[in-house]
């Protein structure tokens, strides 16, 4: 016979409230993750209407990806485009964040500007890429403008130079995300105790000194967060270069990112190779995140 306990037990509610998250997590994250790893050990694709496999091939798919030399190349492309976009983005965001949170500047229409800088993020990346594609086409408005003011004699083919394509991708990513980063950094800056700034001012610190000696060090946790999320987002860069180069990664695949390469395997429904590539990306992302985390947190302790 169970004795009725007089103690009201609340912890079952904890588990009940966790159920929705757990179910969603298992169905949409864990199962796909496990099945990706599982699939990566099989030869499994379609040639025309003929299904080939799934045949167990061990680590053959992993070997193929390593030996054909594609992975390092596309990893390099991805990182170049991410860094090109991230550096101006973080500089811009820090600057804007510092201005917006500095009470002595008394900026007017703050809400308006915050909304405006966040705007590009609301546009769909593909629409944004389409816009740039049209703007920078051989007979697009940018070219006609440059020809009219006499910079070029004939249309400059923006889409057939590695530098300009990568530059355009980086610019777009920077424009799209600096608003978001600014908001995040501002939140971090506003969380810093204002008395620290006042104390510094009383001690005669310049604005630069305050920024480097007080704001930046205290902002570190949020900076780490921004770095890691942006890095993961950068590694998964897809829509902007895909639309801008029409899926080719031209010129000579110099703007092809890892996910664009992954997408190439969709045509033949090559789940084996795509799975192996995804596992590699999982590992790379994990390692890089660890590095960033350690690197930015090491000095403190």
């Amino acid at each position: 016979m169970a004795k009725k306990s007089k103690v009201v037990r609340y912890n079952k509610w904890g588990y009940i409230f966790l159920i929705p998250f757990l179910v969603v997590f298992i169905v949409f994250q864990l199962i796909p993750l496990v099945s990706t790893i599982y699939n990566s050990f099989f030869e499994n694709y379609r040639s025309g209407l003929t299904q080939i496999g799934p045949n167990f091939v061990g680590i053959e798919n992993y070997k193929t990806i390593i030996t054909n030399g594609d992975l390092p190349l596309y990893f390099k492309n991805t990182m170049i485009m991410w860094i090109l976009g991230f550096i101006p983005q973080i500089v811009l965001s820090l600057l804007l964040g510092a201005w917006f949170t500095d009470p002595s500047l008394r900026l007017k229409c703050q809400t308006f500007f915050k909304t405006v800088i966040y705007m590009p993020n609301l546009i769909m990346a593909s629409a944004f890429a389409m816009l740039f594609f049209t703007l920078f086409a051989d007979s697009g408005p940018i070219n006609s403008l440059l020809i009219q003011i006499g910079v070029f004699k004939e249309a400059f083919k923006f889409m057939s130079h590695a530098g300009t394509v990568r530059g355009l991708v980086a610019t777009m990513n920077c424009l799209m995300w600096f608003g978001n980063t600014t908001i995040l950094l501002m939140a971090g800056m506003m969380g810093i105790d204002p008395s620290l700034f006042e104390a510094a001012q009383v001690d005669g610190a310049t604005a630069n000194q305050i920024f480097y000696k007080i704001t930046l060090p205290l902002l570190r946790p949020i900076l780490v967060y921004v770095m890691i999320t942006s890095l993961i987002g950068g590694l998964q860069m897809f829509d902007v270069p895909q639309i801008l180069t029409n899926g080719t990664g031209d010129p000579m695949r110099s703007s092809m990112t890892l996910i664009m390469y992954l997408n190439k395997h969709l045509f033949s429904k090559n789940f084996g190779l795509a799975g192996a590539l995804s596992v590699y990306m999982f590992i790379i992302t994990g390692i890089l995140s660890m590095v960033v985390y350690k690197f930015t947190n090491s000095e403190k302790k």
Partner: protein
Amino acid sequence: MKRRIVSLLAIATMTATMFAGCGSTESASTETADSSTESADAAVELAEDTGKVLNIHCWNDEFQSRLKSHYKDYEEVDATHGKIGDVDVVWTITPSTDNAYQNNLDEALLAQESASADDKVDLFLVEADYALKYVDTDYAMPLKDLGITDADLADQYKYTQDIVTDSNGNLKGASWQACSAGLIYNREMAKEVLGTDDPDEVQALVSDWDKFKETSEKIVGAGYKMCSAFDTYRTYSNNVSGKWVQDGKLVMDKNIDKWIDDSKELVDAKAETTDDLWGDDWAKGKRPEGNIFCYFGPAWFFNFCLAADEEGTIANQGGWGYCVGPQSYYWGGTWICAATGTDNANLVKDIILTMTTDKDVLKEIAQQDADCVNSKTVLKELASDESGNLELLGGQNPYAQLAEGAEKIDLSNLSAYDQGCTEELEKAMKNYFLGNATKDEALDMFKKAVHEKYPDVTVD
């Protein structure tokens, strides 16, 4: 209190997304795995039609509008439904963009056996570039099993049948179009630079690739360009001596190699552009200020691509001329295939026969829709009188040339890999033409891309 409301809200949204997720997976599974086992093998002896639904898969409304205006029993219900007698016609229209049409059709055909009678595909349409992918499998039904004989199809052009003949020699589809193509030139520019705009005289100036190059020098000298390098690709690729893939291995034909070398030469001489087909830059040539001498295209190109209804285009002023060009070739076209397992075999047979062999229907199509139809007799009639004169060609009647071209096309070298190879070759070679890679580098990239698309094809 407030906190509780917030957490309740959070739970509500979470569960809502959960159910949304479940809902979509459920509906997806019914589509593929609905297995009410009603195996209808009506097709073999052409037993009476048992199907109440005729499922047609296609990628645009072209065939639908043809059926609507030329198949007498067809009644439209709405954009994706119709009726023929008691049979409901259901259109599954999936655009070709990003391979979506084929992906969708693949799934439908692979599930054909287990699909319920009302869900079975009855008819599907294919384009030449990937026709063999479907024709060379058991998913497409031989026309002779439908009771369509060679005599029924005798008036069609042979090349239109070569495309849909499988490796065992079975004919598995039919088309109402004959898309022989040629060179569409700018009359005014021809008069100015070449001194004539007469189709026969212009033809003499571009009758082979050497003459084409000589003419291009004159055009460049006058400050114009011929066309895009990709315009000429199909002229070469239709005249190859072997298939793209032989014994599971990618083979570069010497005519493809010639396209690469010729195009590079012409691009370097600034006689050709490297604009992608259908792009904005490419389309500039439709207007006089685009300074482009010619396009390469078949009959559908006249109406579909030259923007004759827009003010200020060359077509609007009737400023184009048509000649066969350096080599005969074809481009595009739609073939009707019957899917194995159809439960409306008689109806399917009647649709194929009416739409592709009935001369009255074909003539109607040619006159109403300006299609170049797949009938030697009808084309001859059109060529012989004024009814074939086209305004956008300045009153020229192109049907004699179109018919002549259609006779010359030889398509025995088509393979199921053509679409992928064409796309990837054009992408890779653009890099070579623009000087971003050497020919070998570009070829390597092409081979790599083909191997990605077709992992079973070896490329070295």
